[in-house]
């Protein structure tokens, strides 16, 4: 009996260190990860590209943030506590005490005010990319150094999401006073890592900030983000030159890396807040005719295409204007009612041909503009093949991103493969893409539809969730009838990393959870 107790005690002792190794984060080590594309600026207020976000996120904090492991729940980052007035017109935030910037200065409410003023009313020469998200803010007030108060002009149901946006990096008021464009060329925040260097075209380095406000974090000594082309990334991960990539791989890339790394590979998958769109130029004949647009949308076999394309590309499931699977999304049953989402493709194609005939466009030929990278090319090849099956001939025009933007803006296109991504599922964030051309700079279909705009505005001020969802459904219904721009497929996010990378959180967007404050490297 005694022997047995001793034995079990030994077993427990033996088991403990092993358990500790997998459970308790280990301190130390430098994480090498891959990232495509060079950042055009260091200022997260001024841009929308992940190339900036993923690099600077470890250096900054935001007022609120999405809770790791519990997306889309919102928790405080710099904010310790907060209250929202019953009329939803006043937001009051209490800041954490003793938060330090990398230069040693202490964060106060003045820094928050300077940051948000810069976003809401950018001074001359400063670019603010998300000014439109804060148009309903009347004022930012600082009653004391630990309190920030936002007063609203009218109710905005998306406000908490906007406060949690990863794009609203908090800058130092003192630095902004010296030079409003300080953050464009310098990196200085309150995040878990201090900026070390950026060698253009090569890498970006950060090291642990010892005075980070979350005690014990970060675990890593530092990180190195290595710039590389997406094809080189697969090789680098397979060859163990880097340990992670945080945007996402295609299924074939995943399989390649997993085959090379064996059991050291860790794969995390999710739906992605990013979708492919077919947009028509409603100012050009015959795309000014809703019948033609609807026919072209009807001809696309989204369910069939998804089943095959999801095996070879980042394209995933069919969905509406909001991410399928999110709290705002329609169910597959509801989707099947939309034109182009019905399961009977023979019937869809017959209807498409009928519509074209009715519009006098049986021998329609068109040019489909597209980008020249995967999976845009994949989507283009697929759509052209689908249209061919209703007798529509399309020429594929693949262009560089810069000309792609310029051709859309000048209206020199007939149809093109577009995409849209956001940091959250909030309907105002995503439906914006489909509003009228004069209302939204990203609505590139060049159409004006006041009915859509009215629905957009109504959902934006509706705080009741069920009512808001119903409004989103009505918005979608109207859009599919008119088909100025129609969703093609939503992307799937597949993140592959070496198993020694621990503590990173997967989510449906590659813009959040990138501060690396909880990430650690297991011993190998």
């Amino acid at each position, binding site marked *: 009996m005694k022997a047995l107790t001793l034995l079990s005690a030994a077993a427990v002792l033996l088991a403990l260190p092993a358990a500790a190794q997998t459970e308790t984060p280990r301190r130390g080590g430098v994480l090498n990860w*891959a990232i495509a594309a*060079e*950042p*055009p*600026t260091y200022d997260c207020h*001024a*841009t*929308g*590209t*992940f*190339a*900036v976000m993923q690099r600077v996120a470890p250096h900054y904090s935001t007022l609120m943030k999405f809770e790791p492991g519990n997306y889309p729940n919102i928790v405080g980052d710099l904010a310790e506590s907060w209250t929202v007035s019953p009329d939803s017109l006043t937001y009051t935030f209490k800041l954490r005490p003793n938060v330090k910037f990398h230069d040693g200065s202490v964060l106060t409410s003045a820094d928050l005010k300077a940051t948000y003023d810069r976003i809401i009313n950018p001074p001359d*020469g400063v*670019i*603010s*990319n*998300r*000014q*439109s998200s804060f148009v309903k803010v009347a004022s930012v007030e600082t009653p004391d150094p630990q309190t920030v108060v936002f007063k609203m002009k009218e109710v905005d149901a998306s406000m908490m999401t906007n406060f949690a946006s990863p794009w609203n990096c908090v800058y130092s008021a003192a630095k902004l006073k010296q030079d409003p464009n300080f953050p*464009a*060329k310098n990196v200085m925040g309150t995040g878990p890592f201090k900026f070390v260097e950026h*060698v*253009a*075209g*090569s*890498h970006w380095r950060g090291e642990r900030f010892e005075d980070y406000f979350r005690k014990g974090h970060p675990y890593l000594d530092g990180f190195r983000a*290595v*710039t*590389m*082309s997406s094809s*080189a990334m697969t*090789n*680098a991960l*397979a*060859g*163990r*030159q*880097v340990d992670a990539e945080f945007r996402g791989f295609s299924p074939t890339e995943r399989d390649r890396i997993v085959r*090379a790394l064996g059991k050291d590979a860790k794969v995390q998958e999710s739906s992605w807040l*990013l979708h492919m769109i077919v947009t028509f130029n409603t100012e050009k004949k015959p795309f000014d005719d809703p019948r033609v647009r609807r026919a072209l949308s009807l001809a696309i076999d989204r369910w069939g295409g998804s089943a095959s394309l999801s095996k070879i590309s980042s394209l995933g499931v069919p969905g509406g204007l909001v991410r399928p699977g999110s709290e705002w999304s329609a169910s597959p049953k509801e989707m099947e009612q939309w034109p182009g989402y019905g399961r009977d493709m023979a019937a869809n194609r017959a209807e498409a041909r009928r519509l074209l005939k009715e519009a006098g466009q049986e021998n329609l030929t068109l040019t489909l503009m597209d980008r020249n990278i995967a999976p845009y090319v994949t989507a283009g090849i697929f759509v052209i093949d689908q249209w061919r099956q209703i007798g529509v001939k399309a020429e594929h025009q693949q262009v*560089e*991103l*810069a*000309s792609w*933007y*310029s*051709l859309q*803006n*000048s209206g*020199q296109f007939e149809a093109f493969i577009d*995409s*849209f*991504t*956001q940091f959250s599922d909030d309907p105002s964030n995503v439906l*914006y893409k489909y509003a009228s051309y004069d209302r*939204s*700079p*990203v609505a590139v279909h060049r159409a004006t539809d006041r009915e859509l705009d009215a629905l957009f505005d109504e959902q934006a001020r509706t705080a009741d969730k069920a009512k808001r969802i119903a409004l989103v459904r009505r918005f979608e219904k109207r859009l599919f009838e008119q088909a100025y721009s129609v969703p093609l497929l939503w992307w799937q996010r597949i993140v592959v990393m070496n198993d020694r990378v621990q503590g990173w959180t997967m989510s449906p967007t590659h813009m959040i959870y990138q501060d690396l404050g909880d990430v650690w490297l297991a011993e190998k």
Partner: protein
Amino acid sequence: MLRYLTKRILLMIPTLLGVAVLTFFMLRVVPGDIVELKLRGDGGTVTQEVIDRERTRLGLDKPLVIQFADWMKGLATFDFGTSMWTGRPVAEEISIRIGLTLQVAVMAAIISVLIALPLGTISALFRDTWIDYVVRVVTIAGLAVPSFWLGMLMIMGLLTYFHWSPPVTYTPFLTDPLANMSQLIWPALAVGYRYSAVVARMVRSSIIEVMKEDYIRTARAKGVFERLVVGRHAMRNALLPAITVVGLEFAFLIGGLVVTEQVFNLNGIGRLFVEAVSRNDFIIVQTLVLLIAVMFTVVNLLVDLLYGVLDPRIRFA
């Protein structure tokens, strides 16, 4: 000689000016500019007003002639401007990358000579025999295989058979020669093999030429062993023309790296060039083109001078 040199150097000025004018105005015909791409990235929601403001800040709304004059004024004071993408000085963007590109180019040149000298010599010594044919097929094949494809096969081979891939960041040779070499030897091989074909052809014909000369003819023997002995003498004489070809091809080699750097993910000026073209970062593109043109013209001049030294029959006129 001095007069010839002065004349050649003076001629370079209008040529380079022409390159500057042509490049500058060709680029401005390109539809679109960098601004939208820079502000919107992959999904920003920026307004037209912000776009216009940035366009003004970058000076893209000024008349073309003024923009060109600004560029020329800068060049005169060795100020090449700033990248429209990163906002860093162009000189800095180029200087952090040019070391790598030059190193790969030099290594590729050395590799091509190392391959070409023996092969070209053998080919000449056994001219019109099956040995000659085999060697020529091997070298001409080098010219035919796209170096990007060769590069892809190399990376895949390394990954499949050694479960290893070359390092992803550049380490200067002096810091860590091993790390440096294990990254750069592969592109140098892929490009060098390709250029060995050109050099081998030159070596072959100049050895054939040398072999006709009297002292070789008297030493000419009939056996294979003696032929090789003769070959050593001839090879020495063929070395200079071979190096000349390498020099002449050097600028092409830099051009060849444009594609190869993509495959091997090298942070060199070739990749910078392709990326700048795709982003419409005109400032970078025009400066790089001018830089390459300067290198090319200078190398051409040096090669011509070298010819003159080697072959007194060439008159400087």
